[in-house]
């Protein structure tokens, strides 16, 4: 636990989460969600949970992003609301 780094990373994760929810373009939301998972993985590592961080990096940052991009490619890209 390193407190200053902790607060900075939590702030980044918060910014990414809010941006991913509020954005209209789905592809941009997927890209920002990729950044969210990268920063989340950094947060896990910083809390010395390396195995969790490895799982987060491998599952959410690569395969998750790829599968979500595939879903956006096969459906509509703009959300209607």
């Amino acid at each position: 636990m390193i407190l200053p780094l902790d607060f900075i990373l939590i702030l980044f994760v918060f910014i990414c989460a809010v941006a991913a929810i509020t954005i209209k373009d789905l592809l941009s939301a997927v890209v920002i969600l990729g950044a969210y998972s990268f920063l989340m993985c950094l947060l896990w590592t910083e809390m010395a949970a390396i195995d969790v961080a490895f799982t987060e990096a491998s599952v959410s940052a690569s395969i998750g992003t790829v599968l979500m991009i595939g879903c956006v490619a096969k459906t509509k890209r703009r959300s209607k609301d």
Partner: protein
Amino acid sequence: MIRDSQDVIVKTLSRLLVPFMVIYALYVIMHGHHSPGGGFQGGVILAAGFVLLVVSHGLEQTRKRLSEKAAGVLSSIGVFIYAGIGALCLILGGNYLDYGKLSKLLPVVPAEARSLGILGVEIGVALAVMAVMFTIFLVIFTVGEFQEDDRSEK
């Protein structure tokens, strides 16, 4: 998106990168008890290597190495390895996945047998995860493409 890419840079770089990626994934699987990682993470990285091959070299090149049918068979084999080791421990008189009992079969002490059993379970988990991830990727990305193949099969 399944089609062959015409870009020289992506094609050559992924050609050079994919074998090292697969060997790295196998390293993560095999050294699961020394360093972070294990069956699940290694399987996902293995599937990511095949995904990179599909995206850069097209589906036909990938089918020569891992076809859809082989992926289905591999997922079943992975689950079979995992459950088989657990049931073997059960037959030998222990609990489910009680690896120490494997020392009755293998000519080693129980601590070593425990390590070997964990390795076998991790290999099974990695095979199942890799095959299922690859199949999900193909199912999502090939919707609406390759209709002529389906017709020729019927």
